[in-house]
């Protein structure tokens, strides 16, 4: 393009201002890319295909309300169910309250079959099953606290007056969940039954054929609809989304914050671009005098401002991608973000947003320059 040199030279004519503008845009798009990537991370985890043959059964009242243990045998009678296991959120911590992570009591003999996406070496699984106080932990968790197989780990209960004293018997591998802690439900029940009675937080069902998920879900809920403890059955994806909703409408919050950040960068960039256009009034008048049409001026300035936006967006977004490749976010967030990174979809979204920013912020200054009367512009010149 024969105007490229003119556009590029104008873009970097005031190096300090360009640097500051790009820094500002880069910082904001880094932030936006991070927020969008967190959302994307949640979505990816929910849609990963893991647990696509699994249903969670909880109380229809709320996740905090338990269900009778007797439901397990009843649910197991429904045709199409391969396995059912109890899972109890324990909510304990390790040594200090800040050392908090997801910890569950689970049916030790059914864990491998219901949660078949958790890879546990056979010998470790057998050791876990054989030890009533055995525990299986995620690799990030083990790394964080320096745990090895055979280590004795005591958790401190908060919800239940019970401090599980466990021995690490295995370290599982999972695509997303790398920081959970599982131990025997029998051990938990034995220690807490006086308080909890014969109840458990949730049941998890693995169905033989994923096509039967809807039918089985309906059948489970129908079975207990008129009981004292009605159930609500979810797919794992729905369960995760419900869990996310418990800590607020994160998606809405992140989206609103991202839009606010982009709006802020539009305003700040508009000020910068207006200044850039204003100090070139006489140059624009000269260009128009020598034959540049209003349309050409408008196009050149818009390309310049959109390029500025795009460079800022690219710096921030690709910077975020690079930073999250270098930094282990799973470790930084103590397992909250697993396999975290800025994916192609987020990069594309941010780049399109940065083009829109350039267009919105530069549109008015470019239009004013294009509409400038040659005589008015040259009045400062002639």
């Amino acid at each position, binding site marked *: 393009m024969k105007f490229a040199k003119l556009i590029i030279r104008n873009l970097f004519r005031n190096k300090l201002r360009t640097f500051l503008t790009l820094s500002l845009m880069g910082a904001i798009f880094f932030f936006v890319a991070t927020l969008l990537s967190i959302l994307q991370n949640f979505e990816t985890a929910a849609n990963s295909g893991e647990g696509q043959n699994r249903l969670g059964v909880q109380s229809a009242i709320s996740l905090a309300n338990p269900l009778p243990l007797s439901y397990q045998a009843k649910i197991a009678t429904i045709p199409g169910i391969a396995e059912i296991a109890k899972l109890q959120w324990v909510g304990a911590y390790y040594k200090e309250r800040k050392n908090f992570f997801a910890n569950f009591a689970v049916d030790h003999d059914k864990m491998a079959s219901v949660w078949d996406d958790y890879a546990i070496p056979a010998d470790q699984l057998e050791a876990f099953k054989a030890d009533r106080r055995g525990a299986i932990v995620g690799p990030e968790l083990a790394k964080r606290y320096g745990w090895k197989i055979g280590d004795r780990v005591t958790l401190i209960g908060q919800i239940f007056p019970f401090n599980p004293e466990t021995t690490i018997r295995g370290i599982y591998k999972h695509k997303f969940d790398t920081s959970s802690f599982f131990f025997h439900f029998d051990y938990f029940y034995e220690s807490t039954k006086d308080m909890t009675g014969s109840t458990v937080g949730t049941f998890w069902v693995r169905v033989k054929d994923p096509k039967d998920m809807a039918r089985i879900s309906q059948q489970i809920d129908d079975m207990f609809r008129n009981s004292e403890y009605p159930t609500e059955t979810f797919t794992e994806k729905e369960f995760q989304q419900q869990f996310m909703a418990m800590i607020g409408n994160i998606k809405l919050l992140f989206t609103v914050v991202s839009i606010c950040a982009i709006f802020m960068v539009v305003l700040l960039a508009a000020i910068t671009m207006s200044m850039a256009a204003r100090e070139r009034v006489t140059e624009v008048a000269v260009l128009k005098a020598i034959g540049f*049409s209003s349309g050409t001026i408008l196009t050149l300035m818009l390309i310049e401002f959109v390029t500025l936006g795009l460079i800022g967006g690219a710096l921030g977004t690709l910077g975020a991608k690079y930073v999250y490749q270098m930094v282990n976010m799973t470790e930084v967030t103590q397992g909250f973000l697993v396999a975290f990174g800025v994916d192609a979809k987020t990069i594309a979204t941010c780049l399109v947003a940065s083009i829109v920013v350039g267009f919105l912020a530069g549109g008015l200054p470019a239009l004013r320059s294009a509409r400038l009367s*040659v005589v008015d512009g040259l009045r400062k010149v002639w």
Partner: protein
Amino acid sequence: MSLVDIRDVHKVYKRDSFDVPVLNGISVSVPKGDFLALMGPSGSGKTTLLNLIAGIDRPTRGKVIVGEKEISAFSETKLAAWRATNVGFIFQMYNLIPVLNAADNVELPLLLTKLSKKERREHLETALNVVGLADRMTYFPRQLSGGQEQRVAIARAIVTDPTIIVADEPTGDLDAKSAHEILDLLHRLNADFQKTIIMVTHDPKAAERANHVLQLDKGVLVESERRDSAGSHG
């Protein structure tokens, strides 16, 4: 035969709620190859008349005809295209684009043509040769003296081989020596390349180079003097 024909031109500017008449029924003919100097006190309307001839302003009344085309009736877009091929501008303050070097500044008007990169290069080299700055092609405006900047501006004005060159106080910001060189250059463009030049100036010495001098006062033509002996004072 007239290249520029100004017929009973009036120009009134609006300033807030006031009408400010600047030109009051001017009629002028400028033959092809003329070197015309427009003189007069500040506010006499000479720059406005130059703007009308250059097609960057329109008369309130009357006609501006250049090369048998009534440019005062052209649309904004058509006028811009017309200026690109028919008018070369020389400004008092040179007005080169500071971020472009001399060659790129001279090339600017050529970017609006369909010439290839190679052809554009040939044209700009020729123009810079004419003004004697072929060895300063890569210099940026800040690296040039005022006289050199104005010569680059003249190269920019002639690079498309325009019909008319308009200049408003082209020596107004230059020292005597540089002004002399610029006037010599303009004279050469007129004498050797038959360029029609219309120049606004306050300087009687500059006006001496022209072969046709118009005196304006309060928007009317008060004197027209044609000289046959104008030329280089080098």
